[in-house]
């Protein structure tokens, strides 16, 4: 079997960990976001009821997805929206390109869409001679830096303002040494206003699509999706097929949860409901599968499709916070990325389910109650059983330590979850955590992978 050429999570996080003050800063910044989430969640007593309701709505969606897709399509068509279906990333990218070709457009503006990251749309369009400008400030910064986003909600959370100042100095002509966020944001505003005003085609993501009405909702704080969409002749919205919700009233549940979980805000600045194209405008929706229907068929892992991409599991994850988003070498990092990626390519992402302490903090904050840490644990079994762990030459002592020590940690978290959660940030810096240069051989788990896998296979 061929070996992977790029570095795995453990090696990439070693690189990230070379600069210890930066790791501490990254860790603290994300923990601060996590604390804002807690304050927002505790601010409404019905928060747990909302999580349970959202989880059940998503269960209903996944179990009736084919009907909801057909219903959504019919309503969207009746609303005057053109609907496309893409089986995979390549087809999605070709559809986008064909729309651009039809309108003879070579430059587009895009608002945040993790799906287009997943599909590597920018690289594809770049190869076709199309220029794409990412308009979310964080995404613009990483785009100028020629890097992928390191977080699904906070794309440049790994960058210091001085580095951003340097990027702006080189690309947007700000004064050298200028790193004031106010000045840099104003510069981006002026620069992108020009872009919004001159692009005829805008691409946006989709946060929620409603089967009952055929409309879709896009949430931003910056207003960039709206600036792009309302100034363009053609609006293309790309969405994964799991983004559907049955009824409009369900938005009440999801919008109450989304930003409280993400950043601790009560709601995003803009929750825009697109139902029909504006007069004279063309509106497209691309429904993308790209492995989702397969994940739906994996009983143990289908819950990952409930994700609303709030990022809470990343902000709370002691491993994400101390290894950085890029160490996951996947468009979606963190705990959720680690359970989505192996579905797409088990060999390529064999290392990711091992990048966790299985402390369960992710599952505790997830607004749709995905059993994230259970799924990480199960992926490990599958990966080992399928023989992929062995082909990953660099599953180092560190990763093995993770695996073997995890059931104990897992049980500990289960029994005394509250206590563990409270002290989890400290656990990161003591010898209990394999991230901290621990090299002893851990005790083997009571149940072997093989036993577990046999029991759970069917």
């Amino acid at each position, binding site marked *: 079997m061929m070996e992977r050429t790029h570095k795995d999570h453990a090696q990439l996080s070693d690189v990230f960990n070379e600069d210890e003050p930066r790791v501490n800063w990254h860790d603290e*910044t994300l923990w601060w976001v996590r604390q804002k989430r807690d304050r927002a969640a505790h601010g*409404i007593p*019905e928060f747990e009821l*909302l999580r349970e*309701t959202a989880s*059940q*709505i998503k*269960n*209903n969606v996944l*179990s*009736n997805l*084919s009907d909801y*897709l*057909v219903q959504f399509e019919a309503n969207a068509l009746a609303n005057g929206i053109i609907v496309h*279906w893409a*089986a995979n990333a390549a087809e999605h990218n070709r559809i986008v390109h064909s729309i651009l070709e039809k309108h003879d457009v070579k430059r587009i503006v895009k608002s945040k869409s993790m799906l287009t990251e997943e599909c590597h749309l920018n690289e594809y369009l770049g190869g076709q001679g199309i220029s794409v400008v990412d*308009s*979310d*400030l*964080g995404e613009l910064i990483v785009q100028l830096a020629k890097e992928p986003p390191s977080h699904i909600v906070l794309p*440049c959370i790994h960058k*210091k*303002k001085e580095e*951003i100042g340097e990027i702006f100095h080189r690309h947007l002509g700000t004064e050298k040494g200028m790193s004031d*966020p106010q000045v*840099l*944001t104003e510069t981006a*505003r002026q620069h992108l*206003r020009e872009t*919004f005003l001159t692009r005829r085609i805008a691409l946006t993501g989709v946060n929620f699509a409603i089967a009952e009405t055929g409309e879709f909702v896009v949430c931003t*704080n*910056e*207003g*960039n999706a*709206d*600036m792009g969409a309302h*100034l363009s002749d053609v609006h293309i919205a790309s969405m994964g*097929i799991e983004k559907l919700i049955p009824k409009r*009233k369900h938005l*009440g*549940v999801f919008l*109450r949860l989304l930003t409280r979980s993400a950043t601790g805000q*009560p*709601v995003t*600045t*803009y*929750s825009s*409901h*697109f*139902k*029909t*194209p*504006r*007069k004279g405008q063309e509106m497209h929706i691309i*429904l993308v599968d790209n492995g989702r*229907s397969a994940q*739906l*068929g994996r*009983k143990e892992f*289908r819950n990952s499709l409930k994700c609303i991409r709030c990022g809470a599991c990343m902000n709370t994850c002691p491993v994400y916070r101390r290894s950085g988003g890029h160490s996951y070498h996947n468009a979606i990092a963190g705990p959720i990325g680690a359970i989505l990626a192996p579905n797409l390519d088990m060999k390529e992402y064999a290392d990711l389910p091992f990048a966790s302490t299985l402390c369960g903090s992710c599952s505790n904050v997830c607004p749709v109650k995905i059993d994230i840490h259970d799924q990480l644990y199960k992926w490990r079994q599958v990966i080992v059983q399928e023989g992929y762990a062995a082909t990953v030459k660099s599953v180092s002592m560190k990763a093995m330590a993770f695996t073997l020590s995890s059931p104990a940690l897992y049980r500990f978290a289960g029994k005394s979850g509250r206590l563990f959660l409270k002290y989890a940030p400290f656990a990161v810096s003591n010898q209990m955590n394999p991230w901290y240069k621990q090299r002893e051989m851990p005790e083997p788990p009571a149940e072997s992978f093989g036993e577990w896998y046999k029991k759970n296979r069917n």
Partner: protein
Amino acid sequence: MSREKILAAVAANQPASQPLPPDPGMNFPAGDLVEKFAAVVTAIGARVVGIGSVAEIPARIAELFQGGRIVSFIPELAEIAENDISPATDPHTLENVDVTILQPHFAVAENGACWITEDLMGHRVLPFITQHLAMVVTAEQIVPTMHQAYDRIAEGAYGFAAFIAGPSKTADIEQSLVLGAHGPRSMTIFLVGL
């Protein structure tokens, strides 16, 4: 065709149907709606300006803003504002609008959001492209949570609509909050009867 392929794969792989849960209800502790709304609006970076009646707005606009191109469809503001913006307007011509004053359908106490449909915007891009945005809200228009909000929305039809909560903002640079990302730099709520 990918459509058939995807639908067949989804139908084959989806689990047995699970029912929708009951709605979470609406009877959550709300407190004083006006007070809550005003507090949240302030917390999200907007400002609340209490007024006795809409007739006071032109004077307050003169105090609060530096003039420039002002747009509003409120009849009492006809003297100071343009009102001939429509869906037929070329959106690019709105690039230099400084202040826009709109009347949403209602506002939400728990998050400070105002619900506005496209028929109240003149043009879809206006609430986003304007440098400063103001909304006129009366106490009776404030609902407690998003659940009541969607209950009310069910009555209306729209091609485009939005909840707008505060000014455009970003914290992408080291989590420092900056107001005025791509949309309005400021959001003013004229709270009538406060």
